[in-house]
């Protein structure tokens, strides 16, 4: 059989992924995450009297802590499988990728295992996050004069 024909045969037996449904769930869960984040910011600034910048940092740390804790307790991966990008795109996804890699490689030692592999998934995000921040910062400097 021609390889192109075979590709066609494979396509006819490919199940439909529920893209619409997945996007909807991700949209709702992502929205809820935003609400939770905002509630945390309000909580920290109202009850602890922090400035809104400090309260945002506290909010991020709280979400990272919870995502890491729930990953370690073993049920966060099930939530992520359900909510998909609703939990992967927010900071929770970043924390989840680091904690899961750290758990996976801890048996191979603190340096050769955990240390060397913890950024296996998150490393890409950091690298290209920094690179794109630099590029966009540069564009902003040129267009808006650094304002």
């Amino acid at each position, binding site marked *: 059989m021609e390889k192109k024909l075979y590709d066609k045969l494979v396509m006819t037996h490919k199940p439909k992924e529920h893209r619409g449904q997945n996007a909807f769930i991700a949209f709702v869960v992502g929205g809820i995450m935003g609400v939770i984040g905002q509630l945390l910011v309000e909580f920290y600034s109202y009850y602890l009297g922090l400035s809104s910048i400090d309260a945002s940092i506290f909010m991020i740390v709280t979400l990272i802590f919870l995502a890491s804790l729930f990953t370690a307790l073993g049920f966060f991966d*099930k939530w992520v499988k359900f909510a998909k990008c609703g939990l992967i795109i927010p900071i929770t996804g970043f924390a989840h990728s680091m904690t*899961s890699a750290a758990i996976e490689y801890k048996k191979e030692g603190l340096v050769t295992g955990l240390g060397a592999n913890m950024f296996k998934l998150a490393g890409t995000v950091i690298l290209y996050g920094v690179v794109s921040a630099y590029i966009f910062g540069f564009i902003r400097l040129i267009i808006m004069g650094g304002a």
Partner: protein
Amino acid sequence: MSFKYKNVYIKDVSTVVGPYENEGPLAKRFDRHYDDMYFETDSVESAEIKIMEDSVDLVLKKANLEKSDIDLFIAGDLQNQIAASSYTALKVGQPFLGIYSACATNTEGLIIASNFLESKTVDNVIVSVSSHNMVSEKQFRNPTEYGSPKPSTATFTATGGASCLLTNNKSKVRIESSTIGIPVDYEQNDALHMGACMAPAAANTINKHLSDLDRTIADYDLILTGDLGVYGKEILIDFMKTEYGIDIKEKYNDCGVMLYDLEHQKEVQAGGSGPVCSALVVYSDIIRKLANKELKRVLYVATGALFNPTLVFQKKNILSIAHAVSLESVE
């Protein structure tokens, strides 16, 4: 290349499984199961070694033999450098051949053992395979606790160890013929749709087996592929029909689909995979049916995706291979 055998008998088989397999439809048929993924060891890699050792101990106990009675130990698995097999071989303490054909490893082992036995150079051979879901996930995909969404074509590496003791002495089931497969490349590179990668290899080997031995599908009660999964199975049926004009639909099933309850165990998605997947189904259920004469002759075609994560990232295709053995009930 196909062979016919006169002196190759299956004396005993053993199966040890993890928790997911034990929730499947074959649960009652396995010899031993563990309720967690670590099997009382401290890492998943050690757990895989333990499960293979367990299966060897069990098959020896069933056959009432000692390790010293074994002339040759043949084993393979998915762990890097087939580690589970090597560590088990150390415990067996007999001449060892480590083999690898990914998920087609089990039939490769059975073919090598059969050829040794047929020439009567050895008397007792054990063929073992194992795989462990978390070891494979870590090695080939993402950390196990990372909840990356997968498409419904993805398969689930089975956790278990399985051993088969082959001899020259007559028993209820024998290996009657075999076919060594050829690697194929149909330019597939989706690591989450292994069924599509492996279906042409299975078709190629089935066709070769039938034409080499001048047989038809009617000579078999059942054609069994290793781990094509729900969608790979459909592809194979279509492929056999259009490419070779052979209709296998009525007599065909896939071990990956049989190992789990696909309705209730949603986490397995398109079905089971891994070298032990087909071994668990054949050893727990098919051998028993052959011994009872419920089945007369079964063509067992284990399928392997020769998948290397590094080369896939370098845009190379995923090759695949299938080896077949024909199991027959003895009069």
